[in-house]
């Protein structure tokens, strides 16, 4: 497995409060990685450190064997794409305008999009399946459509890594399934490393290759979803009794005994 991102003893604190403590991770190409943890465990902070928006006070993040901080912002933008939990759309841009913004790191200060940029946007919309929305205002789309548009925007950045914060939290089961299958497709066909923080144990179990559990700012468990998602880990992670029952290839997870 070829390592893209490596964390070495990463610690981070806001003021006096320590958010992350001594995180060591090695994240490989073409995987789908879920980060589980209770609210406030430090998931979002870890994501921001992985893409260089926040800088770890201790330790270092290596991207393709070079310190992430040695890349300039535009260089990072060509390699790592980010999709927030609740994307802001302050102005009514059209869906295709939003997607073209993903080409920003490739376009000069006073330049407009070139033909190749327009084609990249068109391809991304086809891949994601939102070509019919291209002239719609982003402010008039549903949250599922917005999430798809954000993924298409991330895709035109031609990234090696896609970082998502709670990609399916606001979606119903149908759209959640759609987004997760799409992410799997991107992983398989484009070899993108997908890293997503999630609250949803079910999506974690069904769609992710690997799970990282974060508790009180430290890596608590790390491994394939079958091995890591079990009664002891989940009960400890969320601080309530959780039952995990595997029966005939199906998994049942519920609170209590």
């Amino acid at each position, binding site marked *: 497995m070829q390592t893209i991102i490596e964390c070495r003893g990463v610690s981070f604190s806001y003021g006096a409060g320590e958010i992350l403590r001594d995180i060591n991770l090695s994240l490989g190409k073409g995987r789908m990685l879920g980060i589980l943890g209770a609210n406030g465990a430090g998931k979002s902070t870890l994501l*921001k450190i992985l*893409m260089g*928006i926040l800088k770890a006070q201790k330790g270092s993040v290596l991207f393709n064997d070079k310190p992430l901080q040695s890349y300039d*912002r*535009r260089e*990072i*933008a060509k390699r*790592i*794409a*980010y*999709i*927030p939990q609740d*994307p*802001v*759309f*302050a*102005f*009514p*841009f*059209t869906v295709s*305008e*939003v997607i*073209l*913004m*993903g080409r*920003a*790191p490739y*376009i000069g*200060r*006073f330049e*407009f*999009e070139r033909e190749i940029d*327009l084609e990249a946007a068109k391809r991304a919309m086809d891949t994601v399946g939102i070509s019919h929305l291209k002239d719609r205002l982003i402010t008039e789309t549903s949250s599922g459509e917005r999430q798809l548009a954000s993924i298409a925007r991330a895709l035109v*950045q031609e990234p090696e890594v896609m970082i998502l914060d709670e990609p399916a939290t606001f979606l119903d089961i149908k759209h959640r399934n759609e987004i997760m299958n799409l992410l799997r497709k991107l992983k398989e066909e484009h070899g993108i490393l997908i890293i997503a923080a999630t609250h949803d144990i079910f999506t974690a179990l069904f769609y992710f290759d690997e799970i990282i559990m974060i508790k009180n700012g430290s890596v608590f468990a790390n491994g394939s979803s079958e091995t890591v998602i079990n009664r002891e880990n989940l009960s400890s992670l969320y601080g309530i009794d959780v039952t995990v029952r595997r029966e005939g290839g199906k998994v049942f997870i519920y609170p209590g005994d």
Partner: protein
Amino acid sequence: MIAKKKFIISLSVLFLLWAVTAVVSVLSGTYDMSILEALFRGDELAGTIFYKIRIPRVLMATVAGGTLGICGAALQALFRNPLASPFTLGISGGASLGALIGIRLGLAAGILGFSMVSILAFLFSLLTMIFVYSVSKVGGVVATGRLLLAGVVMNFLYSAFVLFIQFFSNFTESLQTMRWIMGSLDIVGLDEVWKTLMFVVPGCIILLSITKDMNLFGLGDDVASSLGVNVKKMQNLIYFATSLSAGAVISVTGPIGFVGLVIPHILRMILGVDNRIILPCSFLLGACFLMAADTVSRTLISPVEIPVGIITASLGGVFFLWLLIRSKKEVIV
């Protein structure tokens, strides 16, 4: 339509509109005969009016209207809010007070050609903007209600200070201040235009160079950063450039309201919200609008000249009322 084509077409159309408005504006006024005819006859008075009054005035209207328009658009991108403008944020009020203090202290002299009065206006604008921004931000997001309230309060405070200065002025000074506070393009010669341009040109170049970043900023701080924008630097550049150019304009013309609010608004209704198009177009349409308003102010009840601020405020006010009534069912953001 792709952005580049839209950019070229809208800029060309607005440039034509500017040229037509400029010609009409230069040719109309109180002087009671065809000014071109008089010029050809070598009439000395006509020449003076044409070169010393009409041309500088049209240029000043272009610079002032354009600057207020582009600053409005930039501030709306910065605050992620379509109601931000030099006027609503209290920047006009701050610049006015700064300039008035400069004028009263007799600081007409300049440093390296930069007028001290404009520098004071710039400083007051900058401080006001930073203050209003920090007050209106709640949990990383600008709250519209707080923003407008902070702007209104700052305007009230500044006008109290202005009145205080007025109270201790003699009759002539007081009258001058009064005229200036109403907003007017009443200048003679090109000196004021050059002095203003020294501030406006760098300000506008800075703003036009970060329009793409402003678009990305509309997707939120984190997404903008992840796409390669240095958010802090972009914000600081907008603070600096808008204070610099709007401050310089207001120190000459007095506070002219509503241009920065209405112009980008109209353009977004027609052209969409891409700042790469909206900013330069706001300059051109702002220039056209102020020129037209000034022409009306000079000719409506000629030979009496109504301060142009009264015209822009009444047109802008009516436009916004119409917008409010029309969008009664929508939540105004």
